[in-house]
């Protein structure tokens, strides 16, 4: 059953029809095509970085042990010799996305390969890789190749000047979720009252030219902390509002340029600067092009007299799926509240929640294995199984500690032919607090099951405030 929702406007008084009219209203395809090009370029550059810097070997080939995501232990590892080919494929697929060639197949393959690479080892998890995976998943449903693409060039039947508004809305929603939750994640006393971990990070960058000496001043850390929180939590509003959008985007560029200059966050600023483009008018690339060519620009008139058909059950299923996706994206970052406590400490609900740059955390872990029959003990340093990079991540994330404990138990039981107990001696420092035990050292982790439920063997977070660093240059000047 279908019904007319009016010519791209709000002709029908019925809310349901108005919703469809809003979602299906034709919008210039130009902005989405530009987004497709930019995302393809970023993926290609990312893949090239991995190959050029040798990260493929260090992150994927060297590890003898892989940490898997809960529920994804079945994902197989490919032979190490094929890994470079996988990243070459990512780079090539990025180029295909950019030029819009074999788009439908390309974007699905790109999502599959990109997500597969992320699933290979949890210790490689980064928020912006997760974001790219989500954007690619969304692009699987967005026909962003119907203009400005090789596909549209050689198959004229594909060509469209517009796409339904929901295509842009989905991407806007996704980028908005990142910013808003990144802002909400900073509503903590560590961030706002103590300016940590920014104080630690900035104080270590005093060697930078011009601004260096200022960076260890505490007020600078506070300004950066509050500014960062306000930026993250409000920028979407200003990007959505047409009158403030250009200024907001300048702020976006400035903010991410500063974070790129100060912190080793690789492609993250570029991805966010690209992502924020989805908030612009759908015709912005045409307007920009006209300005570059010094041609008059009067905007693109929306198609008139075109009745938007309210879709039948398929459309409703699609809408339902989109609503489910949106709910999931909102609930995932909030799930940590079901666990209680400090997520920065216990990490339950930390991943997929956009808690970007909210902690400086380091741990020291040793596994103590005890033969249940003979009573003999061994101390297993994680380095026996992990690369240094994996060890650094594992030592502060309880679920990864548990995974390694299970592997150690299996190995020792295979060699001793006795059941063994595995306990973990783990000390962790969070945002400069003196280190404290992270997990109960009396609990046999070999007998603990992994899962989504709360992990009672994680000890409570320290209650002391984080460290307050002083400016060392000023301290010297006062006669240390």
């Amino acid at each position: 059953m279908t019904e007319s929702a009016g010519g791209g406007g709000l002709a029908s008084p019925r809310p349901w029809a108005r919703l469809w009219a809003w979602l299906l209203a034709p919008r210039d395809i130009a902005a989405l095509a530009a987004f497709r090009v930019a995302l393809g370029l970023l993926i290609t550059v990312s893949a090239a970085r991995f190959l050029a810097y040798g990260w493929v070997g260090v992150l994927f080939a060297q590890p003898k042990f892989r940490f898997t995501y809960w529920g994804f232990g079945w994902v197989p590892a490919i032979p190490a010799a094929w890994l470079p080919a996988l990243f070459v494929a990512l780079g090539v697929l990025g180029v295909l996305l950019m030029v819009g060639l074999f788009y439908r197949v390309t974007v699905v393959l790109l999502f599959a390969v990109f997500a597969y690479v992320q699933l290979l080892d949890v210790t490689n998890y980064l928020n912006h890789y997760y974001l790219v995976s989500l954007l690619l998943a969304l692009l699987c449903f967005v026909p962003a190749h119907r203009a400005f693409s090789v596909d549209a060039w050689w198959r004229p039947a594909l060509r469209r000047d517009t796409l339904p508004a929901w295509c842009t809305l989905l991407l806007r929603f996704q980028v908005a979720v990142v910013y808003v939750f990144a802002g909400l994640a900073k509503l903590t006393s560590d961030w706002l009252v103590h300016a940590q971990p920014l104080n630690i990070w900035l104080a270590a960058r005093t060697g930078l030219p011009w601004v260096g000496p200022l960076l260890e001043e505490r007020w600078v850390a506070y300004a950066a902390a509050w500014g960062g929180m306000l930026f993250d939590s409000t920028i979407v509003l200003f990007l959505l509002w047409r009158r403030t959008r250009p200024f907001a985007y300048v702020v976006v560029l400035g903010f991410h340029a500063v974070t790129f200059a100060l912190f080793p966050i690789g492609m993250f600023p570029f991805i966010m600067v690209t992502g924020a483009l989805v908030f612009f008018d759908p015709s912005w690339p045409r307007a920009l092009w006209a300005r570059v060519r010094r041609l008059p620009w009067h905007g693109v008139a929306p198609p008139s007299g075109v009745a938007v058909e309210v879709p039948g059950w398929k459309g409703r299923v699609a809408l339902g799926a989109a609503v489910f996706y949106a709910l999931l994206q909102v609930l995932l970052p909030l799930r940590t509240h079901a666990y209680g406590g400090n997520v920065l400490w216990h990490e339950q609900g930390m991943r997929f929640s956009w808690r970007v740059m909210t902690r400086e955390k380091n741990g020291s872990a040793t596994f103590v294995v005890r033969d249940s029959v003979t009573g003999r003990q061994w101390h297993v340093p994680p380095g026996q199984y992990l690369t240094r990079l994996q060890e650094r991540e594992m030592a502060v994330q309880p679920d990864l500690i548990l995974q390694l404990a299970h592997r150690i138990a299996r190995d020792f039981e295979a060699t001793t032919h006795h059941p063994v107990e595995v306990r973990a001696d783990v000390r962790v420092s969070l945002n400069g607090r003196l280190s404290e035990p992270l997990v109960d050292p009396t609990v046999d982790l070999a007998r603990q099951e992994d899962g989504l439920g709360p992990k009672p063997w994680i000890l409570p977070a320290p209650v002391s405030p984080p460290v307050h660093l002083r400016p060392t240059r000023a301290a010297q000047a006062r006669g240390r």
Partner: protein
Amino acid sequence: MALTALLCAACSDNKPKPVDPPPTGGTDVRAELLSAAGACMLTTARDFLPKATALQAATVALRDAPDAATVAAARAAYHEAMDVWQVAEVMQVGPAAPRSNPGGGELRDNIYSFPLSNRCSVEEQLVSKGYESASFSSSLVTRRGFLALEYLLFYEGAETACGPNSPIVAQGTWAALSADERASRKRAYAAVVAADVHTRAQALVDAWVPEGGNFQKTLATAGPGNAVFPSTQVALNTLSDALFYVEREGKDQKLARPLALRDCASDTCPELLESQFAGRSKQNLRLNLVGFRRIVEGCGADYAGPGFDDVLVAAGAEAVATRLRQQVVEAEAALAAVEEADLKEALAQDKPSVQRVYDDFKGITDVLKTDFITTLDLEPPAGLEGDND
């Protein structure tokens, strides 16, 4: 943005606020540490050079006139040189460090390759007289350096560590050597190795001094424009990487393995102790802590002078500095509490005392890996520049 503007407006009220004095351009305590650490490393290298010279002379004397006195003198020279080198072990920065490190010159592995050792390889050299080859100084590090020297000067047994597949066992060439011939070749081999150590010791000093490679200046001037250390933080990271010797080599190799906490099937594994023939495993650990303290606390008398603890204190992290110093003192006390002359006897007679040393070394590395690197925003060794968010 409106909120930001509001915040900025709030910042600009006219109420006087107590503020820290602005930076005055005074010497950065971090830069001061780098300068002092470089000086300390040069001093240690300079201390080592005459010991290496004496060792070379003593091994030549032993080779040319072997008797009980020259044997004793060569062994004493070995101990004296090793006493300095074990302090330097914790200072593997720049010329001494692996080539993968900033400014790495790999001199350390050529002087002392622990834990890489291969007694069989040394014995094969004895049989083949490979030490007489012109290319010996570029042969495998396990055939050279202090580990080979320790075996050559201190081990008097007749058996070989080589397995039946080794040519010197399969072809009977080891067994064919008389005791006198074996001893003679050991003396000649030791003289060659000691000369090689001396050459490396000289190269180490040359790499640090102003009239040579001037690495001291390279370290002290870390920052923009410095090709090796483009920032102070990179240089501090290199220094802190060197401190992790107490974990990798100290806790995990020198203590955990002999204690049978890893890689050992028996109750104890004294054969995995660091010093197998000279009986100085305990002394080596003690000296490692001396080197550690010279970087952490200061290189002067009683560890005075700039150290990492001064950076921590200046930054307001006194508690971390105190905790770190306290752990080192406890480790030293645990070592001193081992009554036996060496860990070999201690493992046999009082294993818990060695376990306490391990526990206290772990205490140091716990602080290093948590409070220390967190507060100073350092990276643990082998950290990777990545897209960290």
